[in-house]
């Protein structure tokens, strides 16, 4: 199939799927089948595009000229390809998981849930393949709006409050800072096209570059740089599949992906390296990385702990980008994939625990590992990958990020990366350790989901569709370890 056509298809496919989901809303089985088929077709189209890119193709398509000089333009490039692969591939697994989770919990408004999910994925594809900053911004905003109903899904006061913070911070930063930065860039450079080497050289006074960079970096609220990170913990009121795919993969990765895009294709790493405009960002990102890890250690709620862990991990990528070296960029890009794989595993495990036992606090989960060994094994693998131990994928991205730091000679940053990894150990491993080594609280577990079953020593795993997906992604962490080289090969053109 013609690659340019395929490109438009990746955007439209989830939307068409959403229409069919709306039409089949009355029959859940058909509706879920539509979701799975859509996800499968999407992954197939993205994979076809990947083959085209690896063969050297550069598919592009202009959808519509929104205003003179501002087209809605799609352009495949390696970084976006990677993001699209991650989001579309994990959508399949996450859809399986959604079915298990949403049914297992008897959630309301499931049709709305699946529709919004599909629209969010379509927006993510738009972000991944955006050919200019204008297009990226448009899909960035549609992603925010389409995920709002998912965050507010439960409709409780807590959900409403969380969703308000979510929308307020993401819209506030994007309209308040990012849009200004984009218009400024447009006026200064006369173009918003993503160009290898950047578009700002000689177009803007070097002393103003740090300000423009700050407008971009804080304007990309989805990257959760402190102090604009509060939306991510707030979004945890959403059902876990949302937290798993959107707030560990699609939305947050859209944020750091945008950061990488801006630094690589708008500023250009050479320009940043020469002017030192991103020096301050190293400090902010390092602070976020460490502070969020420390906050994570204090959280007893499992999803909140994972959320702060995500904030910390996102700053790995921002930090890598701020170093403005090729290794830093490669490591950051790779971390998009490896962290996605690890973190989605952790979230799906947290959801599985909730479905099976309705427990949300880590202190309640003593001894649970013996009842849910598969879930906990997957959690362990995901944790180790995020900590960065071989043979798991996380090691490679940390390796490259640290190399980037060494390359610039800022040894302090290397130390920050290492300290943060230790902190990862400190807040992730106890979850597993408590599950396996602490005795279960006696007598009967006061759980709702398992209330019907008498307390036995046997397995009390969540439904198959809740347990299988995290096991798959845990396996993915191992597989990605062996194929990291291929990913790096895909990415290399962006820094050459």
């Amino acid at each position, binding site marked *: 199939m013609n690659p340019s056509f395929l490109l438009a298809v990746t955007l439209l496919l989830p939307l068409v799927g959403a229409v069919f989901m709306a039409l089949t809303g009355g029959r859940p089985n058909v509706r879920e089948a539509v979701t799975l088929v859509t996800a499968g077709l999407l992954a197939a189209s993205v994979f076809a595009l990947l083959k085209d890119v690896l063969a050297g193709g550069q598919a592009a398509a202009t959808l519509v000229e929104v*205003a*003179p000089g501002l087209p809605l333009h799609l352009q495949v490039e390696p970084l976006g390809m990677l993001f699209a692969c991650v989001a579309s591939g994990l959508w399949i697994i996450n859809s399986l998981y959604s079915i298990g989770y949403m049914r297992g919990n008897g959630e309301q408004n499931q049709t709305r849930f699946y529709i919004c999910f599909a629209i969010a994925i379509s927006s993510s594809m738009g972000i991944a393949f955006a050919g200019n900053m204008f297009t990226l911004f448009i899909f960035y905003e549609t992603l925010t709006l389409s995920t709002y109903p998912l965050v507010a899904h439960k409709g409780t006061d807590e959900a409403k409050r969380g969703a308000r913070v979510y929308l307020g911070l993401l819209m506030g930063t994007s*309209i308040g800072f990012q849009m200004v930065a984009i218009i400024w860039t447009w006026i200064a450079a006369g173009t918003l096209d993503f160009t290898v080497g950047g578009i700002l050289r000689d177009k803007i006074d070097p002393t103003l570059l740090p300000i423009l960079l700050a407008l971009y970096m804080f304007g990309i609220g989805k990257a959760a740089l402190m102090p604009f990170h509060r939306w991510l913990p707030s979004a945890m009121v959403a059902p876990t599949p949302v937290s798993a795919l959107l707030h560990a993969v699609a939305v947050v990765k859209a944020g750091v992906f945008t950061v990488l895009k801006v630094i690589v294709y708008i500023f250009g790493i050479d320009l940043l390296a020469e002017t030192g405009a991103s020096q301050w960002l190293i400090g902010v990102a390092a602070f976020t990385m460490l502070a969020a890890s420390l906050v994570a250690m204090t959280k007893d709620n499992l999803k909140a702990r994972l959320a702060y862990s995500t904030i910390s991990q996102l700053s790995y990528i921002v930090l890598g980008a701020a170093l403005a070296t090729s290794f830093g960029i490669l490591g950051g890009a790779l971390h998009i994939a490896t962290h996605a794989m690890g973190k989605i595993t952790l979230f799906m495990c947290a959801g599985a625990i909730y479905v099976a036992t309705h427990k949300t606090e880590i202190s309640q989960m003593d001894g649970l590992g013996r009842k849910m060994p598969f879930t906990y094994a997957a959690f362990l693998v995901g944790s180790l990958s995020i900590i960065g131990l071989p043979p798991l994928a996380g090691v490679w991205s940390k390796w490259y990020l640290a190399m980037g730091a060494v390359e610039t000679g800022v040894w302090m940053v290397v130390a920050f990366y290492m300290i943060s990894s230790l902190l990862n150990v400190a807040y992730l491993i106890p979850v597993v350790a408590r599950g396996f080594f602490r005795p279960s609280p006696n007598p009967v577990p006061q759980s709702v989901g398992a209330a019907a079953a008498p307390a036995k020593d046997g397995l009390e795993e969540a439904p198959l569709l809740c347990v299988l997906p995290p096991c798959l992604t845990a396996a993915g962490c191992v597989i990605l370890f062996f194929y990291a080289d291929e990913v790096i090969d895909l990415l290399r053109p962006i820094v050459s």
Partner: protein
Amino acid sequence: MTGPTLSGIIPHLPALQVVVPLLAAPICFLLRRGSVCWGFATLVSWAAFAMSLMLLEAVLTDGTIRYAMGGWIAPWGIEYVVDATNAIVLVIVSGIGAAVMPYARRSVMAEIPASQHGLYYTAYLLCLAGLLGVTITGDAFNVFVFLEITSLSSYILVSAGAGMDRRALTAAYNYLVLGTVGATFFVIGVGLLYMVTGTLNIIDLSERVPALQDNRTVHVAFAFIVVGMGLKLALFPLHTWLPNAYTYAPSTGTAFLAATSTKVSVYVLLRFLFVVFAPSYGFMALTLDYVLLPLALIAMVAATIAAIYQYNIKRLLAYSSVAQLGYMVLGIAYGSVEGLTAAILHLFNHALMKGALFLALGCIMLRVGDVTMRGVQGLGRQMPWTMAAFVTGGLSLIGVPLTVGFISKWYLITAALDDGRWPIAVVILASSLLAIIYVWKIVEAAYLKEPPAGRVVREAPLSMLVPTWVLVLANIGFGISAEYTVGVARTAAIGLLGGTP
């Protein structure tokens, strides 16, 4: 219709654009019966829309059209002049009329006593004729005449809401007093101009007035006209008539007036500021920077904050209109091609947003009978199509990408940054962020709250949903592909600043 007849009519389109609705009004009055009047008024509205589209097309291809009314050449007779600027305003006015009319039947039946239907449609046709007349005429005094036709008929449109709520009468009276003050100021200004130049033709004025930049009488005329039009277009702090008028008018009246009447006043201000006075320095040029600009900024922030605290959603949208008019005046106050482009663009875009929003509210009025925050509770489920339309309109108001609101904001901010006016860009952004709050209050009430116990309502009828959605889709359509509207707005802006249109 055969070819020769059609081509015989086309040269007279500028006259027909006004004459058709104007003559239709008395006929409508004679028809008496409500539904007959409605059918007739709908046909007339569509005809007016078709004519305005033809005019716009003709202007964009062949340039300015000058039409001598009754064959009397300009200085003696009244001249109609159509250029890109007013052609687009004509399209807005007649287009909104054409969208509102099919919708009106059910809404009017529900909101206005049957005995008044014929009169209501008659007043509507007069209002339409007046608005089109103000826009198309090239004669300063004729502007005043049509302005009065518009105003008098819109007082009637507002007071027709008295069947629902008696406060419509005080609202209309208040509107009448302030509207008359505005029109009087305007005509005094025109009189002063006539005194010093001896002409009322706008093109002639534009040739003579700029030479009199230091003339005290011209300064006074300028002040009277700016204040008069400021009142008519509800420029803060002269906006006090607007919230009540919009709140208590019948739904169709509000939708039509909100989307058209203030826009026409903005157009008149544009025409007089940049074509007649064309200030380049001194008192008049400074007015832009030191009077209009600050007032626009205050309107954008203060009215938005006022909107946040409203309980009645019609009133909320009315305050939002005051804020949005601030955006337009802001673009005017820049005085640059970029600024005027943004202002004209927003003129068009805002008509689409407010039209869609007020029509959606009318659907809610019909089914629920209550357009307060309580009235919309739980409607996301009970009236999904109406609420979806409302939310889309609300997103457009905030300026979310892929809606017309985004295009407006983009150009307004670009115009500000282009001149290096950073603080203004900050105010624009702050105001859009505040808009999120009031839109989201409604979204949360509709989607996240349960409907009041025992209330069962159905979705609005198709005859109302279709026009609403036509405007909603226009919001999205012109938001995704704004090349055409931006092009027209830029042509108009360049024409305005070029002195002669």
